[in-house]
């Protein structure tokens, strides 16, 4: 970020420099792909067990049709978005209320602290016993993945507010619930944003795990199914899709929600 702001002045040079950087950054990818293809082409490993990039592209083209793949993607996305939204909303709500009302914090944070170290996937047995094999058990695991990091960083954000901000607000006659909404909540947004990114990647990981272990649709199921029928190139393709989806969604969250909405915060940071 620092480099970008510094380079803003000379746009012509920037374009040239940018294209050079882009070239360098893709060299690594090409090297990896070439080594991978060479290892398979020279039969150092068995192509049936260790598919080459070309075989993976073949799997993408012929083995699975686009509508089927899109169906799996949309089911996975639905699950992760629902679970994440519930977790994020509840996490932000509890984080803010417990950060504002001190007595509530003492009560609410004891159970949260006790449950926080348990990894989301460890809830899978309880989720299945409580909710059965349907959608809600998977959504619950994703919810757990999103809730704990978001509630923790929201609460931390509420506690780390510069006291001067609150004093200035009070001095201007803003009190009570209005102070919470006008001063405290915006001041803790950067920490909430950190929590949202961590929470998203955890929910995404939990989604894949839940789908591998207990699902009949979705991307996790797709790669588990590919293993059962022994099509390793399909597994690799599925892993690529999952990785790309994770990368893309994280990028969207960072770019359009966090950086656009919190320009004021990050702007002031890079000036320092």
């Amino acid at each position, binding site marked *: 970020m620092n480099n970008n702001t510094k380079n803003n002045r000379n746009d012509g040079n920037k374009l040239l420099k940018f294209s050079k*950087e882009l070239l*360098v*950054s*893709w*060299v*690594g*990818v090409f*090297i*990896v792909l070439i080594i991978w293809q060479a290892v398979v082409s020279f039969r150092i490993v068995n192509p049936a*067990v*260790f598919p080459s990039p070309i075989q993976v592209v073949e799997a993408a083209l012929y083995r699975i049709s686009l509508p089927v793949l899109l169906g799996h993607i949309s089911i996975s996305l639905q699950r992760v978005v629902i679970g994440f939204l519930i977790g994020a909303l509840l996490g932000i709500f509890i984080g803010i209320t417990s950060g504002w009302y001190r007595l509530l914090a*003492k*009560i609410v944070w*004891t*159970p949260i602290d*006790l*449950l*926080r*170290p*348990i*990894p*989301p*996937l*460890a*809830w*899978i*047995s*309880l989720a*299945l*016993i*409580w909710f059965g094999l349907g959608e809600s058990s998977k959504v619950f695991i994703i919810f757990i993945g999103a809730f704990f990091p978001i509630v923790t960083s929201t609460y*931390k954000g509420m506690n780390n507010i510069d006291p001067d901000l609150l004093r200035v607000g009070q001095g201007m006659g803003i009190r009570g619930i209005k102070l919470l909404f006008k001063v405290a909540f915006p001041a803790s947004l950067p920490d909430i944003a*950190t929590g949202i*990114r*961590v929470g998203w*990647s*955890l929910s*995404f*990981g939990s989604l*894949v*795990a839940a789908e*591998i*272990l207990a699902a009949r649709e979705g*991307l*996790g199921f797709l*790669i*588990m199914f*590919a*293993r059962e029928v*022994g099509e*390793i190139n399909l*597994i690799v393709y*599925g*892993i690529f899709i*999952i*990785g*790309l989806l*994770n*990368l893309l969604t*994280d990028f969207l969250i960072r770019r359009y929600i966090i950086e656009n909405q919190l320009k004021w915060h990050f702007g002031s940071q890079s000036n320092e």
Partner: protein
Amino acid sequence: MKLSSKRSSRFLGTRVLNVLIRLMTVIILLFFWEFSVRLGWISSFEFPPPSRLMETLIMLITDGFPRGITAWIHVLATVMRILQGYALATVMAIPMGILIGRSKILVRASNPVITFARSVATISLLPLAVAWFGVGEFARVLLITYGCFWIILTNTIDGVQQVDPDYHRAAQMMGTSPSQLFFRVILPASLPRIFSGMKVALGMAFLVIVAVEMIGTIQGLGALIQQSRTFFRSDIAMVGMLFMGIFGYFLSIVLDWLERILLPWSKGLEEVER
């Protein structure tokens, strides 16, 4: 944040009060849970009461589940897997990260590969690892290594890159040799960041271990939780989660303690990218 000596006794008082409030909350919650089951408000099958969980805990420690595999065997299996995978990742990632971080071109060239490799959910590699290496210990340890490796690697690269250039200049002005520059300046200055990467990676190891133990083994806490699911024993699931939580909490305390002892100059980086 600094406490004056006048306020420290009051501070101690509030700390004791806080612990008391926390303890009371737990006790009240447990009583409420126990009685709601006894009174039939919630089913003991879905929410086994604390008294039942105590019995299960004792059963797990003495008899074990499945019979003969006691809680200690489960914990030990999980600890060994995590330690192996974690150690392997650390040993590979730190030298590699230092190597990449020292060169701007390498940082740029490796960036897309590392970003993508990190985005690949480690657990999605489970089917592939099973297809390649079978359902054995090797596949399990390797997946933990994968999950930890990229986190430690990116934090090491960042740590090396973010060494204050003034340290560099000051050391060069005093005429340090390249090896001294590395061992006395760059390494110590980037260690706090590396360490916080290792802490995040440990959390990742915990995440992965549960998934990899759910397939093809009956030893380990993940396996215990998986068994509880097959037999619909919510009490065993809860005790398994309890072990997992205590174990995770304990390890994070040990790491914090190690950081304070080994890296007294580290100020504790709170916000580290995952």
